[in-house]
């Protein structure tokens, strides 16, 4: 495939944006600015970016506790994201959700999810809804290797298969589920082999190679959009940072982490872009600096945004709350 420079640089910029957002979130958390749990997507940027480059605005995704990358790649506003991490009224959830519950239904993000596997049944429902409406949208469900051992995974893939729903299941196999290594808790090497159980295509790819991700996602999304039904893509990657910011990481060797820093997706792609002469050091620097500025401004916007007032806690549960006793 031949790709335009614009296209490739956009992919690059999105990855950089995710990276900088995450680095800022990490910094702010460690400085005590943010509360709750922050799960960083650092090292996994190619997956969200490569997949989302194939989606329309009116397509849907469900995300996970590690959802910032998915949001940004689907087009979310980093100001409102950062404000949500800060718990401010200008945040995506008016400060009621926090990192693990950011959503933007207007761009098809049906929510991060604090429950491992929790997004899968929702994605199936979105697919079912699309099918009932006879629309041509698709749904992409992101989830982790750990989630692939939950009952929700199994029920969702079977369900999606029998009704041929327009769904793409993307398992981000980052080698760990919290402190547990994937090897230890998952009976097989390649999670995509589980596709056999549902009679759907399953493929394992290098999730750190954005072009590979883009191409496979393209194929499976096209298939789903045309009525071919669901598929399972396993994107192998590595969670370079701790499970959450502050994780003591007692369960793995520092060496292992260092090794994977060498294979991380942004540098990998950069190398390619340099080879293709689509990027040079000057341009690269500019991209990073521009983005860092954007993210810094997002943090500033967030920090300066108002803290929600108490009465905010007693709204939004229902559309119609007459008679409800808060």
């Amino acid at each position: 495939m031949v790709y335009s420079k614009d296209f490739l640089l956009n992919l690059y910029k999105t990855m950089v944006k995710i990276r900088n957002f995450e680095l800022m979130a990490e910094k702010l958390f460690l400085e005590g600015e943010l509360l709750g749990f922050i799960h960083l997507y650092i090292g996994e940027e190619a997956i969200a970016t490569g997949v989302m480059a194939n989606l329309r605005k009116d397509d849907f995704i469900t995300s996970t506790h590690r959802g910032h990358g998915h949001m940004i790649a689907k087009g979310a506003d980093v100001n409102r994201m950062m404000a949500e991490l800060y718990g401010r009224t200008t945040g995506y959830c008016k400060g009621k959700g926090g990192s693990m519950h950011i959503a933007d239904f207007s761009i098809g993000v049906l929510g991060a999810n604090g429950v491992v596997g929790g997004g899968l049944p929702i994605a199936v429902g979105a697919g079912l809804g699309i099918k009932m409406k006879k629309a041509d949208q698709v749904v992409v469900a992101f989830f982790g290797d750990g989630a692939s051992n939950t009952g929700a995974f199994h029920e969702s893939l079977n369900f999606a298969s029998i009704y041929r729903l327009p769904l793409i299941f993307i398992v981000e196999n980052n080698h760990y589920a919290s402190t547990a290594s994937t090897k230890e808790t998952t009976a097989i090497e390649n999670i995509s082999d589980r596709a056999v159980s549902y009679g759907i295509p399953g493929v394992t790819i290098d999730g750190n190679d954005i072009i590979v991700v883009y191409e496979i996602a393209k194929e499976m999304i096209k298939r789903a959009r045309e009525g071919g039904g669901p598929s399972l893509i396993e994107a192998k990657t590595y969670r370079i940072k701790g499970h959450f910011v502050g994780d003591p990481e007692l369960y793995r060797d520092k060496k292992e982490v260092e090794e994977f820093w060498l294979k991380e997706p942004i540098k990998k792609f950069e190398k390619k872009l340099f080879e293709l002469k689509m990027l040079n050091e000057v341009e690269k620097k500019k991209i990073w600096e521009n983005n860092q500025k954007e993210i810094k401004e997002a943090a500033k916007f967030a920090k300066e945004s108002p803290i929600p007032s108490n009465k905010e806690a007693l709204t939004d549960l229902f559309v119609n709350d007459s008679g409800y006793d808060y």
Partner: protein
Amino acid sequence: MREITFAEALGEAISEEMGKNPTIFTYGEDVAKQGGIFGAYKSFSGKFSGRIFDTPISEEVIYGSALGAALVGMRPIAEFHFADFLFTGIQSITLQIEKIRYMTGGQGKLHLLLRGPDGISNSAAAQHSESIETIFMHTPGIKVIIPSTPYDIKGLIKTALREDDPVICFEHKMLYKTKGFVPEKEYLIPFGVADIKKEGNDVTVVTMSRMVHESLKAAEELEHEGISVEVIDLRTLVPWDKNQVIESVKKTGRLVVAHETWKRAGWGAEIASVVQEEAFDYLDAPVIRVGAKNVPMPFASTLQDFVTPNYKDVINAVKKVLR
């Protein structure tokens, strides 16, 4: 007015709304070919092609998919087969459906309806006899309706199918075949409005579902003894009609709350607590609760009868508050 069964009234409500609103569809285990586990969908089987279908035994996805479908603009009705099996997929309700609108700062409308049978039947035993509505009163985020008559279920289900909030409806197994008057003309019943099924002056009985009928039977018997019982059917548990209950207690000074679910930490405790808090000075006697004994439902019918409350328990409770 014509008389139809509870199951037929339910079927009518769904069928009428499906006829009007193309975004409604309904699914679950044994829904399509059998017409619903207790036959409620029979009357319109074959009518809404593609909009009624059977699913695998995958409760977490049955309930969770209702959420997803609502978010993309549809209005799903998912059947839960038996209330007991809500437990096999309950995270989709308590952690997702109940929370997503709030967590996302009010994004989206969750127009979805979960519905199905609960309660005892003929010795269905511990895993097929539960009533677990209290859990959905305790965990915030879903509206709970529990009709006791054909008239009520038709009006409440129709309201539910026009609501923009998630609703769960519990239908007592022993009610499906009961008959009652239902107008041909369309009507809706609002949520949060209790129905005084029988007026009275001496004691208020607050109840729902099958226990409404047991309470009416108790009231009738007590009438012979000169005791006048007011029977209030809440009809919806979230929200519940606190005002009417308190008004009634102000009149009678005595309250019994009767439900089939376990007495301990059942919703009767909530009603009792609120009433004693807000109408303390009007109460001439403690609020007495009638509920199942705190054990799983035994199989043998004598034991089931012993564990499950009936009109006699209501009578005893009424007499107790009158002492």
